Structure formats: structure tokens, C-alpha cells
């Protein structure tokens, strides 16, 4: 099972992990990643965040990344949940979970999916703070991380 959800609602990482394993019998490992809204970014206090996306292309891009991961590693199930809309510091933004027979494949696929999501999936963050609001710039380090694969 490879699945993608883009939603405004919050999620529960524990429930997502349980749903990932439902129906899987051979899987001895699950690797997950949870991303949160930062309290500070580039030394500026973050008061709020707005996440915009390109409906349709977002899901299509992440689904293609999951398919690519499943082709490279032994993936039992993989799920990506990404929030959009207005978020507050400390809120969940993204969750990636991968189940596999062994930890090596679960770790690698989870990290690959997250690195490619950051490079390719059409989401944009706008932060609000004391100095007003601004669009977050892309980081060169994210590009370098994705290029390792």
C-alpha cells in the first residue's frame, strides 16, 4: 500500500503508524519521520505559518516518489500525510512512514521520500512573525541532500 494524504486537519502519529501496519504480516520494521512547525527560523521567532500547495500536482508528485522508493527498496507499505493551511509553532506538518521486512530498507526509503518531497512536491511556506510575513526561501542544503540519492 502506497498512499498520500494532503489535509488541513491535524494527525496522530501513533494512529498513522498503526494504520500503516494493518494487514501487514511480514513487516519487522517501521521507520517514521514527523516534521513540526519551528519555533524560530533563521533567528526570527515564528508566530504562525501558512502552507500553500498545488492541488493535484502535490499528490501526483509524492505518489511518484513513493513508487520510486518501492522500486529501490523492499517496501511493505508507505504513507505520507502533509498538512496545508494555517499552522502554529509546534504543530505537526508532515508524517512519513515506511514498513519493511528489515530496518535498512525502512530507514533508507523513509529518508529518500522525505528528501525528495522537500525538493519536488509543490508546497510553499509563508511565516508570520514580529517583522510581518514572508515566504520561506529554499535551502541549498535540501538540494544537496536529495542529490545524494
Amino acid at each position, binding site marked *: 500500500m502506497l498512499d498520500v494524504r494532503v489535509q488541513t486537519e491535524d494527525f496522530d502519529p501513533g494512529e498513522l503508524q498503526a494504520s500503516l501496519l494493518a494487514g501487514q504480516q511480514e513487516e519487522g520494521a517501521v521507520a517514521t519521520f514527523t*516534521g513540526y512547525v519551528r519555533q524560530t527560523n533563521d533567528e526570527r521567532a515564528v508566530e504562525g505559518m501558512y502552507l*500553500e500547495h498545488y492541488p493535484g*500536482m502535490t499528490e501526483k508528485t509524492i505518489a511518484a516518489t513513493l513508487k520510486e522508493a518501492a522500486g529501490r527498496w523492499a517496501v511493505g507499505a508507505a504513507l505520507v500525510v502533509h498538512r496545508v493551511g494555517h499552522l502554529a509553532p509546534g504543530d505537526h506538518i508532515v508524517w512519513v512512514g515506511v514498513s519493511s521486512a528489515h530496518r535498512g530498507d525502512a530507514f533508507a526509503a523513509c529518508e529518500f521520500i522525505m528528501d525528495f518531497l522537500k525538493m519536488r512536491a509543490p508546497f*510553499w*511556506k*509563508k511565516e508570520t512573525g514580529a517583522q510581518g510575513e514572508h*515566504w520561506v526561501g*529554499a535551502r541549498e542544503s535540501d538540494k544537496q541532500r536529495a542529490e545524494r540519492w
Partner: protein
Amino acid sequence: MLKVLFFARIRESLDCAEVNVEWQHSVSSVGALRATLAERGNRWQEVLSEENLICAVNQSVVNELHALNDGDEVAFYPPVTGG
């Protein structure tokens, strides 16, 4: 007709989320469409000449030379920052 979408900082700079452009030979590639849209004014000229602007056609990222067909959905957006 080409459906042209703009997102995030690009959408705000242009004060425009979507525009329809009649398909013709003068807009038969991404580069040509960019040049045509840039004629709409100084702001458009400035935004559409940004080097790191990304273009997707029918929801796949493409380059300047990509050919456009009638009915295509074209999107211009800044580097992505999700996750």
C-alpha cells in the same frame, strides 16, 4: 486555450492566481509563453524573468523548450519549501 496558474510568492507579486491564454503558434512553447506573458507590464516582465522560476505543464516539471498544446495546464512557481 491554455490555463496558466501562479503560486505562492509569484501569485502575490503578479496579484494573479490564474489566467487563460488563447493557444496559438506564438505561445507554442514554455519560453514563448513566458515572453508573451512578460508583455503584460513591468511587474510581469520582472517576475517572469526570474532565473529560479519553475514551470510545470499538466503537473510535471518541464524546461523552457517544452512544447505547449491547446488545453494544457501550465503553472509557474518559486522553488518549493514543503516538509
